[in-house]
């Protein structure tokens, strides 16, 4: 069956090099899931990507049907939450100068 894959912003890099627009039409096997399709194109899964099925947020296990459009774009300004998530929990104590207490 034929479906369309549409990639926005920096995710256009995951399109085949000959692609001229942000959308390509591809032939895939029946029963393929959104997650399988995304994996085929090396598109990151998880919080760093926003993935849509016909414009609506799907579950990655949702099956893609003939004529569907799967689209994806980076959620952050380039996966920015990576470093934040990886940050060690070095919670600093709030500091307060003498004679100046906000509340």
């Amino acid at each position, binding site marked *: 069956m034929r479906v369309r894959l*549409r990639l*926005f912003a920096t995710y256009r*890099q995951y399109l085949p090099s000959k692609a001229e627009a942000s959308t390509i039409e591809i032939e895939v096997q029946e029963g393929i899931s959104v997650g399988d399709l995304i994996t085929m194109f090396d598109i990151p899964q998880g919080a760093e990507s926003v993935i849509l099925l016909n414009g609506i947020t799907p579950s990655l296990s949702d099956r893609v049907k003939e004529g569907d459009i799967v689209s994806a774009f980076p*959620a952050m300004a380039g996966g920015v939450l990576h470093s934040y998530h990886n940050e060690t929990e070095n919670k600093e104590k*709030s500091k307060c100068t003498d004679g*100046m207490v*906000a509340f």
Partner: protein
Amino acid sequence: MYGWHGRILRINLNQEKITIEEIDSQTAAAFIGGRGWAIKYLFDELDPMVNPLSPNNMLIFATGPLTATPAPTGNRYMVVTKSPLTEALTNSNSGGSFPTEMKRTGYDMFIFEGRAERPVYVWINENHVEIRSADHVWGKTVPETEDILIAETDPKAKVASIGPAGENLVKVASIMNDKHRAAGRSGVGAVMGSKNLKAVVVRGSLDPSFAYPGEMRDFSKQINREVGDDVKKGSSLREYGTAYVPPVTNEMGILPTRNFQTGVFEGVENIDGHALKEKYLIRAKPCYRCPIACGRETDINESEYEGSGEGPEYETIAALGSACGVDNLAAITKANYLCNELGLDTISAGMTIACAMELSEKGIIPEDDIGFSLRFGDAEAVIDLVQSMAQREGFGDLLAEGSYRLADKYGHPEYAVTAKRLEFPGYDPRGSKGMGLLYATSNIGASHMAGDLAYAEVFGVPEKLDPLTTENKAALIKRFEDAFAIIDAAGLCVFLSVRYLFEPDVNLWPRRLTQIMNHATGAGYDEESLLLAGERIFNLEKLFLLKAGFSKDDDTLPPRMLNEPMNEGPAEGQVVELEEMLTEFYALRGWDENGVPKQEKLSELGLI
């Protein structure tokens, strides 16, 4: 004081009287700065029923404790006043270099009062404060004005000014700084024009000092390094600016198209960031100390649209483009340049033209009133009408009043897509329900910048939410509104702050923001007290609104959003279920069923 200078410059333009005031440390911390300090002064001093264009209105420029500091994106200021477009208070935010230079004059805030007899500009170079004639620049565009005033003051001076639109009291006029940056919304430029104040020129070298300079430096460096590393991995904002967004909102069926008659635009591929990059981009341009650089320096060589400048960003593309049915990126960019040069808010200008197009197509505005047959998709008309709007020429005089007054004049206010008379930004809330509640409850009207839940509903920042459900949206909008009040008051840009200074989930716990605020100010905030300060600012604004005659009836959306289901796309069949969200929102805010803050809430916030 640390972070803050603790000094406010008050300039009465009637009397040419200049005074320097100090703010006490308790008030400084409780209202944070910027938007917070400004509403405190507005609430205490301004008659809420004042005519916004009368000399009695106050025009406040306010920086925050993190403006002009090493904090990443510590480059913002806010313009706070009573709006002539909405008759509500407003706070309009801008970056660039002007806000940093303003803070370096040694004052955190400027208050302009009264009206000068003749056009003037104010030249502030630390202790040298001078009101000068602006007769020679009155009528000139923003870039012309900046060049002239820098030449006659200091080559390193920075300028905020109005263009002809502000002079002509156009109700959607902006205040521009650094030529291309806009405190755009709510007609703040008209307030400046009504005071005969053409420009404010600043120069200074007085950096704020910090309670913990070592920690301030190290923490800022750490965040900058993280952002820098992430940008190197590939940043859509750096690569395309916010212009990467039209295909995204279009995919979700919420790209304002033909005055919000639909959310799907057939010409979207022609007006996105990729097209902009391929055709017109010169380089990405950052504000002061911003590691992201979402600004776009562009030029157009096509003869009929020739020009250069900055933009367009997403909101401009949605307003002057898809909302008007225009898919000609050169024309949109040219209209953007004209708005910047003439001093018009691109959002309200574009959305007002879109409203006029619908009224014209429906036969509600006679062709004779416009002078030609105005139809969606007419790029030339957009360019012409932007200019006539700024000059109040012909039909432009009606457009200059904004879409609500335009549609109301012709007996059909329901076609004005506004909340509290402020034109919607670029997210159709029928497919982004939280944004619907935000537009209805924002104290300044339909502004995405008042608590942009599209971050989560559309962009997956900090995490992706279902945009079509109303569940939990009331709680999230409350938190986003309070958090954005903190960001605005601190003098930061929301782009970086939401991503790096809060815990990475939708509850926006301001852990790192609290740390950096304390490094700078030493005020001893904890996360709860900082959030409470944001809530305090939001509630004081609400109290001002109530005194200005606003009520629950104003916390609403146009009939199209409430009763007219989206006709196609992923949001097909959707309307905004506002009432259910609003009831929950009022309760969570500690307000009564009419949206009036209860005594217990005001007491908790220290507002009574």
